[in-house]
């Protein structure tokens, strides 16, 4: 009883700054305040310097334990692009005018809305999920199966990209090693798991037999890839032009892009 009473007096005077405050308490308080300030200042500094990247010579380079495998896959994809994808995309671009290819791009974007919607939902981004749902409804009907984007042009509803890799990252799952896969390109373990989960949201296999859904899925992936490449014919060439080590340039570009997407979601 007396003990708690004395505590009350001590804390009470310390908090209100009453006349009973001893020199010792003052010193402790001052030290605590200084520590707090130093700590918050440090945290603020670290926070500010962290994301854009610090003016430090020892800033991060990535560990790449799967590099031997990754490098082989990277060169395989490069050859595949050089000998198949890029020539096909160039030929296709010569036949189909840009507005047509942009409409096809919008069509696929619309068709792939489920993972965007679901992952915005998983991250409790209700407004973004709602926007995605509204966009799908408007663009599928008024926008003629997604070939046009009246949701944006008339209603100002912008697309909110999201995927399972980002959802996992959002909830703190570490990204794991960098992983390059044939046909799919750069990723991390986390993003590969996410990619598979997003892929499982593609509804067709749940409604038609596998010998229909499998070729349809493959066909969709191929047309999508060719169409995308045809809209970005010199994307890769621009990277190559300025790269000293192409693998490293693509790897870092991927890592920085994903980190920036995740940062934006956490803001």
């Amino acid at each position, binding site marked *: 009883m007396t003990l708690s009473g004395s505590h009350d007096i001590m804390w009470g005077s310390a908090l209100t700054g009453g006349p009973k405050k001893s020199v010792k308490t003052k010193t402790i308080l001052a030290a605590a305040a200084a520590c707090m300030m130093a700590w918050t200042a440090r945290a603020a500094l670290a926070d500010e310097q962290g994301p854009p*990247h610090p*003016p430090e010579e020892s800033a991060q380079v990535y560990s790449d334990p799967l590099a031997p495998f990754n490098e082989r896959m990277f060169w395989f994809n490069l050859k595949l692009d050089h000998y198949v994808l890029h020539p096909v995309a160039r030929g296709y671009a010569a036949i189909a005018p840009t507005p047509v290819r942009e409409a096809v791009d919008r069509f696929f974007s619309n068709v792939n809305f489920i993972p965007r919607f679901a992952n915005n939902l998983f991250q409790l*981004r*209700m407004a973004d999920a709602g926007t995605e749902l509204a966009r799908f409804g408007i663009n599928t009907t008024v926008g003629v199966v997604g070939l046009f984007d009246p949701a944006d042009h008339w209603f100002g509803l912008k697309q909110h990209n999201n995927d399972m890799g980002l959802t996992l990252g959002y909830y703190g799952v570490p990204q794991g090693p960098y992983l390059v896969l044939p046909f799919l390109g750069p990723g991390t373990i986390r993003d590969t798991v996410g990619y598979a989960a997003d892929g499982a949201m593609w509804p067709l296999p749940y409604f038609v037999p596998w010998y229909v859904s499998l070729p349809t899925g493959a066909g969709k992936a191929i047309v999508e890839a060719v169409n995308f490449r045809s809209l970005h014919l010199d994307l890769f060439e621009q990277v190559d032009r300025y790269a*000293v080590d192409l693998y*490293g340039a693509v790897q*870092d570009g991927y890592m920085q892009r994903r980190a920036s997407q995740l940062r934006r979601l956490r803001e």
Partner: protein
Amino acid sequence: MQREMGMITPRRRPASLLALTFLAALMLTGGITVYADTSALEMTRQFVNQALQIMANKQLPVANRTSQLRAVLEPHFDFREMARQSLGPHWRELTQAQRQDFSNVFKDFIESAYLSKINDYSGQQVQFLQQTSLGPGFVQVHSTIVQAGKAPIPINYLLDQKDDSWKIYDVTVDNISIIQNYRNQFNRVINDNGFDKLLADLKAKQQQLALPQAS
């Protein structure tokens, strides 16, 4: 940001008043430095506008424009800091002579890369937005390239204070840091093949980029 829209409380005024008082208290204790200073932003704006003007002046032969542009960009970049950061932890392993060698080659490389874009400009608008502090002596200047019918591209300049003026030591395009990207490339080349190989590769790439451009 949009998620916060649902959290508007009816008692908005007292809350904002409290926040204001708190902010004022923080500023008094020196917890927050308020940046009214826009010297880095103005410097970058001036430099970029000057550079774009030269690039847009298509009547002038490429060679003349190139030398003009080189003269304009030289004083605005901190090439030494760029070189140091692009090597990351490897910088410390180098001798003074190696550092100097690398800095010279890297400077030529960055200049050639920049100048090789001299014909790429086709009238896009650049908007300068704000500058934010990255700690004492470091700021970030935010800008965007606005193109009709396309998503705007954010371009940020990172500057440090050297001899009473701001100098650019990194540029981020769509939030991807150029120096960080080279840091990863250089790290791989050094780890796999050593510093001398990096120096040779960088020289070769620079010469490739410096090849004369068609007007």
